[in-house]
């Protein structure tokens, strides 16, 4: 995803206990780097209508949500492709 110019913001949720040791262990085990935020109460997830994990939310440069769910890799790549293609069209229109 980084190659596509997209940032990835990972948000941990549903730990039910102090998430830090659990998430640190998880990230070390799977070699996960980058931004990891903690939604300890799951309030933010619930406010978005997120009801489980994993859930991906794709956000455009205008802050508008372009996709929700997108767990399947092919599905995610297709949604990212559409977002980038839309951006390219907008920029072409600016020229």
């Amino acid at each position: 995803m980084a190659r596509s110019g997209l940032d990835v913001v990972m948000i941990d949720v549903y730990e039910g206990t102090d998430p830090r040791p659990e998430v640190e262990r998880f990230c070390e085990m799977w070699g996960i780097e980058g931004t990891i935020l903690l939604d300890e109460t799951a309030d933010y997830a619930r406010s978005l209508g997120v009801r489980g994990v994993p859930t991906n939310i794709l956000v455009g440069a205008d802050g508008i949500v372009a996709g929700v769910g997108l767990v399947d890799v092919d599905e995610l790549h297709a949604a990212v492709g559409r977002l980038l293609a839309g951006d390219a069209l907008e920029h072409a229109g600016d020229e």
Partner: protein
Amino acid sequence: MGVEIPVGLDPEGVAIDTHRNRAYVACSRDDFVAVVDLETNEKIAEVRVGEEPIDLAYDPRTDRIFTADAHADTVSVVDAATLERVASVEVGLYPSGLTADRDARRIYCGNSLGSTMSVIDLDTLETIATVEAEVGAGAIAFDPTRDLVICVNFIAASVTFVDTRTWQPIGRAEVRSGACAVGVLPALGEAWVVNSLAGTLSRVSLDDFTVLGELRVGRAPVGLTVAEDHSRLYVSNRGAGTLSVVGADGAEWAELPVGEGPGGIAVDGRRVYVANAGSGSLTVLDDEVAGPPAERADEPAHPLLGKRLPPFELVDLRTGATRSSAEWAERRYIVNFFASW
């Protein structure tokens, strides 16, 4: 729609004791089995077992509960009358799947990091065999009509078929990524395997072990149970927070909301029980979806689509600083919600 009962942290496996009208739920982050009274819909006891119990089975004849304790490399044995742990059986590395064959008097345990399946005598608790499977061995089902045990290998994305007369693997099928649950439809001659990362079910022949087809279900499916009459299957969709009811013809009859991050499922002919890892609860639903809908409604679009992402302020795991969505203003990004379990 149904009731939701708090049980403990990260509940995964669930089994029903119809005689006592209880549910037993393996709460993997609490290292206990939650005992739920299904008359009052309340948790009435916690039974300490080995570290990280993931899957669970109940055997009415011995009146025992069994848990696969992933971090302890054991199967705990609990007396359901006294609610005390009475034995612990050593198995392979990281046991994560458990299935009891009550007629053949055996319990099967998939050892994920050991890449093996342990076969244990339900009555004597002796280990009868340790069978080579593949990495990520976990969920197990059996087909007594074909003398087969079917072991699903999560990491290898494969299925191992074992002959119960020799305890030797006799076949293999490649499925999709994240294979983590399995159910058998003997009359159809098929095993249905849940591919959690692919979001599908693979239908695999029990006769020649070929993959017959693939069905799409809800987002990130992880659990599967077959109805007692084999007319339908229940699939929990961990990413969507739903339970799919799928007919044996492959059509999805319904997708029902349950708790957050659902996983383990049990049925007793009257109700469906779903353990929700995210919300730490057990959902109890009446088992009333008996066929496909008269008219299929289009799946509604998620309400967030096309709207501005609501702002957030959340703590950064690595720095402890509070970070705001304003940092990502005018940037394209993906928010990935995840859990460590």
